[in-house]
């Protein structure tokens, strides 16, 4: 009866519930073979230590480790300077009114902090065990170096479009930067490859995964399997798609503005609640860290042992903070600065906040509350951990999930559109076509099962890193020059804090 009322309330013609619920299965069955094919191609794995190791994970983490060494552990050396830049210590008053470092970081973070932090971490722990947490933190720390190099390049090679707006990101540094290195054809190929994958990533991880997990949490807090919404993923997706459509097609910026303002506070609230839960279970600290450290090196009952835990930790960290993927460079490139290095330095904070702080909080809550072995996964596991402490926390989590999902969708619709426009031009018709496709994928994502959605989402996001990281390797000497020049100026006092200059 409730299902009928739901449908009637939305003005839908009355149809028996099983017929509506069947739409979810139909969509899932239609898309799953395609998403499986894409995922198996991207996640080509080789057997290592008795488990399958996806080469793409090694590609991402290997690159992050190389960048870390190449730039002399920049993520640790420049951490304090990054905070100084965000505080505005080096911002000149005459630049007021331009995009500040804080604004670029906050906007990039609202695109990054999404369900990867809540649901993705739970997936990693449910498959890889508690030990995945340690590898996730390590991958987050290494990822700071990848983010640094791509955001520095994003600013260095950004373009001012004829309409006066700023556009930047891997599409531009791959094509322009590699052309400067005498590799114009390779650069164009990589930029095109990146753009195709970015559109796929926007539709997958930036859209379907978000819609899917947001729906799962809504079902979860409204009664689980007995929820009147069970099987109505398409309907939830339709409502989400309409909201997204209002903003990206209808141009109702007020919704986007409100979202941008609420998300940071929601993130702080999320971390605050996580702290509260950890504090309530503080007596478990020895046992919990034993689980994490023991699980990282000699886990029991985890497929693939320590390597299995490592793969899950690395995979979910990369999926969450997107370091090496190239997406953040699109957001960071709008900052007006004469020194591209400054934005690279600021962007180091992104994987730190996203993975080392927020993802770790999720992982600790799941481990401390002891719900890891209850057979759940994804957002349901995180919700169970929150609910284990205070019964109404899952409702706050549901609100956070919806907001994070929505803001991540808006950010990725922008990233996808930029890549789409790079391929098809800046025309309004092409842009609206992409936006329409984006909205349709919200419905598809909410209707599908988690498995195919997560595989497709991961595959497309990681595919972006294939092209991006090739470009980063070729362009890293360019960034090195920028970094050395900038830090030499800083050391000599040519660049100094504004208060000290006055």
């Amino acid at each position: 009866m409730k299902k009928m009322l739901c449908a009637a309330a939305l003005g839908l013609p009355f149809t028996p519930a099983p017929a509506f619920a069947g739409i979810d299965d139909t969509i899932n069955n239609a898309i799953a073979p395609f998403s499986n094919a894409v995922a198996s191609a991207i996640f080509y794995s080789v057997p290592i230590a008795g488990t399958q190791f996806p080469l793409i994970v090694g590609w991402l983490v290997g690159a992050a480790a190389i960048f870390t060494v190449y730039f002399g552990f920049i993520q640790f050396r420049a951490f304090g300077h990054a905070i100084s830049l965000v505080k505005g210590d080096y911002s000149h008053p005459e630049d007021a009114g331009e995009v500040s470092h804080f604004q670029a970081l906050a906007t990039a973070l609202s695109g990054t902090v999404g369900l990867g932090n809540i649901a993705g971490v739970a997936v990693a722990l449910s498959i890889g065990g508690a030990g995945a947490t340690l590898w996730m933190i390590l991958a987050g720390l290494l990822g700071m170096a990848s983010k640094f190099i791509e955001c520095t390049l994003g600013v260095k090679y950004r373009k001012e479009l004829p309409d006066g707006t700023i556009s930047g990101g891997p599409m531009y540094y791959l094509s322009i930067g590699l052309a400067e290195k005498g590799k114009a054809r390779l650069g164009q190929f990589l930029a095109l490859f990146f753009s195709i994958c970015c559109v796929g990533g926007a539709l997958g991880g930036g859209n379907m995964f978000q819609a899917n997990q947001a729906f799962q949490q809504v079902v979860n807090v409204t009664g689980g399997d007995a929820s009147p919404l069970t099987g109505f993923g398409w309907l939830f997706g339709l409502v989400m798609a309409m909201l997204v459509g209002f903003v990206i097609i209808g141009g109702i910026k007020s919704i986007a503005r409100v979202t941008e303002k609420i998300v940071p506070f929601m993130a702080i609230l999320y971390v605050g609640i996580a702290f509260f839960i950890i504090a309530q279970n503080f007596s478990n600290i020895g046992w919990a860290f034993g689980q994490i450290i023991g699980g990282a090196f000699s886990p029991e009952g985890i497929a693939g042992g320590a390597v299995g835990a490592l793969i899950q930790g690395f995979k979910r960290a990369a999926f969450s903070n997107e370091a090496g993927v190239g997406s953040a460079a699109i957001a960071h490139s709008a900052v007006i600065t004469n020194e591209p290095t400054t934005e690279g330095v600021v962007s180091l904070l992104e994987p730190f906040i996203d993975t080392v702080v927020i993802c770790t909080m999720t992982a600790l809550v799941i481990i401390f509350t002891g719900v890891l072995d209850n057979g759940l996964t994804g957002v349901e596991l995180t919700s169970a951990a929150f609910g284990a402490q205070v019964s109404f926390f899952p409702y706050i989590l549901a609100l956070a999930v919806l907001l994070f999902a929505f803001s991540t969708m808006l950010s990725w619709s922008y990233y996808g559109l930029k890549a789409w426009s790079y391929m098809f031009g800046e025309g309004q018709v092409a842009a609206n076509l992409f936006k329409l496709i984006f909205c349709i994928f919200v419905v598809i994502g909410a209707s599908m099962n988690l498995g195919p959605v997560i595989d497709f989402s991961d595959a497309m996001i990681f595919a972006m890193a294939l092209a991006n990281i090739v470009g980063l390797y070729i362009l890293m000497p360019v960034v090195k020059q920028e970094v050395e020049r900038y830090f030499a100026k800083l050391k000599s006092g040519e660049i100094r804090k504004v208060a000290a200059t006055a």
Partner: protein
Amino acid sequence: MSDTYIVGFDETDASHRAATLAAGLARTTGARVHLVHVLEWSAYSFLTQDELAERHKRREEELKRAESVVAPVAEALAANGVQATSEIRYGHAGEIFCEIAEKLGNCQIFIGRKGSRTLAERLLGGLAITLVQVSPVPVTVVP
């Protein structure tokens, strides 16, 4: 006697009244009238992706528009024999006026009273209240 009269000017009737009073006094005292137009801005506000991309362009447009508002008034004052200069700044109006006043030293501030428009202004007070409370130089609020 003050050397400079800082006038908050934003094209409203209230700011015109402040400019008129300051100009009248300047004619008798020989002080300079410094028109200041503040574009409210915080480096710590949250912007959407589109706003990030458009910010540089919008800033150029905002500066151009502000210039078109302030420049004719400064020229008119100069034509009437008043030494007039102008400045356009981004930031919080209260902070900017205090900063300019501290920099100039021997000066006064003239602003027009607009009345509280938003709930926040009603509860916390508008620019006039802020300046009266924190300004390092005398403030004239023109009704």
